[in-house]
Each structure stands twice: as C-alpha cells, then as structure tokens.
C-alpha cells in the first residue's frame, strides 16, 4: 500500500519533471529563435554580399564601357573612321569663314522693328558688314 508520504513525493517529482520539460521547451524555443535569427543574419549577409558583388560588377562594366568609349573617341580612331566610312570630313580653313563683327541681335531687332513701324522694308543684307 502506498503511504501519503510516497504519494506526496511522487506528486512533487511529477511537478519537477513537468517544470523541467517546460524549461527544456523554453530553452529549446530560445535556442531555435537564436538559430533562426542567426540563419536570417546569414541570409541577409549573403544577400548583401551578392548585392555588393552586383554593384562591383556594374561598376566594372561601367569602367569597361568608359574605356571603350574613350578609345572610340580618340582622335586617331575618329580619323580612321572618317577614312574608312568615306565621310571626307575636313576642318574648315580661314578662307571659308566669314566673321561677323556687328551685333547680330541688334541688327535683327532693328530689321523687325522697321517692318513693324515703317512701311519701308530693310535691304536684304540688313546693312551688315563682313570681315574675312
């Protein structure tokens, strides 16, 4: 026959066991949470690393493109293209240049106002002077 004393100790043991299980579950929960957090940190860190690599890759491609553009725009290359494509582009020389020394804005304004306020048309050349 079981005594009261035995019954009390069994009840206490059961409580301790339940508490222990609860503690283990609690600690396990914390552990899982910590692991989950660490996992998330790893995933985020790796995502950041991938993004950094992508940025570096884009920068590299930009640098590569800049170097290629610079080579394409070098005077030697442009001259070669001019010859290859038969564009025959040449620099103007002084004989082809007409230098206008007057104030063009004033002349055009005067021409416009003449038409507005007088019936006498201005001469076609606007009275401009040319200097070569």
């Amino acid at each position, binding site marked *: 026959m*079981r005594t*009261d004393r*035995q*019954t*009390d*100790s*069994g*009840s*206490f*043991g*059961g409580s*301790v*066991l339940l508490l222990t299980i609860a503690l283990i579950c609690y600690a396990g929960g914390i552990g899982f949470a910590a692991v989950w957090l*660490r996992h998330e*940190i*790893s995933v985020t*860190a*790796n995502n*950041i*690393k991938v993004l950094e690599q992508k940025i570096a890759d884009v*920068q*590299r*491609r930009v*640098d*590569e493109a*800049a*170097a290629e*553009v*610079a*080579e394409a*725009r*070098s*005077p*030697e290359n442009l001259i070669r293209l001019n010859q290859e494509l038969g564009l025959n582009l040449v*620099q*103007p*020389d*002084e004989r082809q*240049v007409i*230098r206008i020394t007057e104030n063009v804005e004033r002349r055009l304004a005067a021409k416009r106002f003449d038409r507005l306020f007088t019936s006498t048309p201005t001469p076609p050349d606007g009275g401009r002077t040319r*200097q*070569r």
Partner: protein
Amino acid sequence: MQKGLVSVFRLALVCLVVFASFGGIAARLVHLQVFERDELVSEVERARKRVRILHARRGEIRDSNGNLLAVSRPVVQVGVDPHSVRVEDEPMLPHLAELLGLPVEKVVEAFNRKTVTSSDGRRVRQVRWVKLADGVSEETYEDIMLLGIKGVYGNRQYRRTYPGGSLAAHIIGYINRENTAVMGVERYMDFYLRGQDGWREQERDGRGGELAQFRGREILPRDGYHVVLSIDSVVQHYVEAELRRIVDKFDPVGATIIVSDPKTGYILALANHPTFDLNSYNTADIASQRNRAITDIYEPGSTFKIVAASAALDLGLVNPQTTFDCSLEAVSRRGRLQRLPGDTHHYESLTVAEIVAKSSNRGAAHLGILLGENRLYQYARAFGFGQETGFAFGGEVAGILHPVDKWDGLTITRLPMGHAVGVTPMQIHSAMAAIANDGVLMRPQVSRRIIDRDGNIVAEFQPIERRRVVSRETAREMAHLLMGVCAPGGTAPKAAIPGFEVAGKTGTTQKIIDGRYSRSHHVGSFIGFFPASDPRLVISVIIDDARLSGTAYGSTVAAPSFKAIGEKLIQYLGISPVAAPPVGSLAGGPDNFSLNRDRIR
C-alpha cells in the same frame, strides 16, 4: 492524495544522468576552452579568419574637355586549381588555350602541376592555383566560363589603360606592372589618383568562400580622385600630327612642340619626338620616355635675342628706332677692342626694330654691350633662364646661365644672340609667353583641377604669376617688334598667318659636336604667339638636327609648322583676328616693375 508519476529512485536516476551529461559536457568545454584554447584558437584563426584588402579604384586623368586620357580597366587574371580538374574536361583545353592565346602544351602543363617541391627538396606542397594568363578581358573571360571547365576561374583586377596610346605620353606618364606610378601626371598626381585602400576582417568556410555573416570590422576603400588637365586632346593631336610630319620630312634627332595660353600658363599641348605608346611602355627605350621639353638643354640662338632687346627697351636705353652700326666688326670697350659676332648677311645701320626682325647677331651684341654684364644677366634670370620653370614634373633641369664672374671676354657679345647659355624648350617658351602676357612670367601648368567621382571640385590649380619681367609697355612694344619677324623682310615670313598678327622669333644654333660648333648639325626653332595685340596662344617648335640639304634654319624647318598648327587652332578654338592698336597709344597703369627696374639700373 494524488499518486506520483515516478518513483524517487527513478527521479534520482534521471537527475544523475542529466547532471552527469552536463558534467561531461562541462568537462569537455573546460578542456577545450582552457587547456587547448591557445592552440585551437590559432588554428581556427589561421584557417578561417583573414584580413582582406579592399582596393581603391585609381582615378582617371581627363583632358580639359573631359575626354579620358588614362583610365583603369577591369581585367581578369585567369588560373586553374589543378586538384579540381576533371578528366572529361580535357577535350576543352585546346579551346581554352586558343581563347587565352597560349600554346596547348603550356595549358596542359599548368593543369598537371598538382604539387611543388620546396627549394631544399624536403617538402612537397599542394598547388591550388596556377596562373594561366594576365589581363584577360571580361568578354574573353565570359567565353572561358562558358566552356565549363571545372577548376578554371579568374581573379578580377584593374589595369591602367591609355585610350590615346601615345597621345600626350610625356605628360600623362604611366603605371608599371608593380602598380607604381613612374612618370608624368600619374606620378606627380599619384597622391590624388591612387585613393586609399580599405580592409575587412572576414572568415572563410572550408572551401575558401567568404562567410558573409562573420564579417568583422571593416574600413571601406576611398576611390582616387580624377585629375583634369589643361591639355586639350584635339590640340595635342594636331601638334603630334605636325610632329610626325616633321619627322617624316626632316628625320630629326629630336623635336619638341609646346602650345600654351600665355595669360594663364596652362599648357594645351606638349609633344616630343621620339615618343612611345603608353600601353606598351615596357617595349619603349628610355630615351623615348624622356620629356625633352624639360630635361634637354640646347643653345637657344636667336630666340634669346628677346632678352637683350626687351631689357634695353625696358630700361629706356633704346627705342625701336635707335640705330646701331652693324657693319663694324669690332668696337672699343673699356679701352680694348671687342670683336663682334658676324651675321649671315652684311648690314650697315640697323634700328632696334630691324635688329629683331632681321635677327642680327651683331645688333644683338651692340644691345648686350649697351646693357652691360650685370643688367643682361639680371634680365636673363628674370626671364627664367638658369632656373627651373616650376613645371611640376620630375626631371626638369635648370639649364645653364653662368653668373657674371664666370663670363669670359666674349660672353657679353655672345649671350645676347643666344650662345653661352643652355635652356630647355620650356624655358624659352615661358620667356616668350611672358612677352605675350604683358611682361608677366607665368608658371607653366598642366593640372587644372581635381574632382571626385560625383564631379565635385576638390582642388583647383589657379594660374600662378612668377614675377613681372618687363613693363607692360615694353612687352607690347616688343610684341610689335616681333611682328616684324613674320612680316616680309623679316626672318620668318613663312610663319605668318594671313589675316592674323603673328609675332615670333626664329632661332638657328649650330650644335657642338666633338667640342666644336658643327656646320652641318643645327637646332632650328621658332617661338611665337598670336594675335599679337591680344595673344591667345604661344607656340614653340624646336627641331634638333633636322636632316636636309643646306642649313636647317628655324625659318625653314620650324616656322612652317608654327603656321600649320596656328591655322588649325584658329578654327578649332575660334580665335578671331585682333586689330593692333598703335604702339604709341598703349594704355596701362603703373605697375610694380618700376622698383625692379630701378634696382636693375
């Protein structure tokens, strides 16, 4: 009473097991953490932790219009881990060799180099990386990756490339294989260009990959700044094209052309012959890498006459109409007969204006005698001869201008015509620019500004005045006299540009060969500027030992190049002709030269 779930004995047993287990773990932890700690920590750190250097990107070098002159280009260093290669990949090796431009045998040998023995022959080490090729482009690397050969991979790195090849080679300089800035802007501006490397503490997994979650402290790299030069690629190209034409026509030993803005001292173009391609600097000889504009000295000849003429005008000893008898072979000086140098033509009386226009040696000697040793020397120093110009690149020499106490009896008549003095092309160019800049000597500069990656200005290099050499009136008077050089009757009508006022001075010097002046080796030069009334450009053309039948006069070999470059730059830079004001009506307030002039008097 409620019945207990377990007996006391069982409970005690469970507790014992639990405590024993924890005890065992604790004991192991103590053993690992205390007794074996140092050894384990060092092993872990050795295997996992490392500090990775994060390289900063080097800044670009740009011309005044933003065109790239030097840029860091990403390339890949391709290698193989011989322990990772698979037998089934072997048929791909010829394709890999073709893409890398290597012999197949070399690739196969790299794939089979799995171990290496130490020099003493006692240790054998596993080889995890054998380099196959350097400088592989991204495009080629992508093709290599498409082959899918296991164990082949690349490390990305930046390599300096120069899109213009030899364009402005002596100005830009280069970076060598060891990433050391060797010369030019690359070296002088290295502090701004190189940036600052960063570092990061990181851990690796068993395969060497980074464990991003364990990144420790890190200092991010700071990329280098961009350097913007005053060099204009188009002007530089015109100059180099003209230089090539000179080389094709005259096959000179050396040649230099400098173009600058006289008002600021900024260099728009500087080219030397011989030159080299910056992208293959390792195949260029040292002589072609020399920036002759600042490292080589020569006797300037008649271009130096601007010193004596300017000094005499500035001190009021003469005016443009003052006449000298240039038929005399000697004059009496300090009780002795002083022999005068000869001229290529016989002249009777010449005015100062004619002495300059006709480049009379005898007339220049008269001016030198009139000035006296001390004043001639002081003006030569004031024009910057015998001292560095401050052109901030390594290797500049000061030239030769002996102090008066070391002059011999002939120097007073030879120095005014540009003998007994050694100058660099940059010095004589700066001296002429001082005349063009109303008498103010500027420091020649190539750097305009430093900008960051966002285009913000970090530093700016303003024009630097070195000193006033002659008064504004004298400089303008001198410019007017130098226009006579390019006029009919002057020594360099071939330099004249129709519709523009061109001022300049020719120079022809016999080279000293075996200690004697040679009759067949000359340095021909022309230094000039335009428009004379409001100078926009100073152009120097100096040709060392042009090969042609007859004497390589500056008027023959250099003046036409001045004109050719000038005509192109008029169109490119939109330079308009300027009407010359009469010399007598020169405006100009008092300047700080009066004190200096009094001192020299």
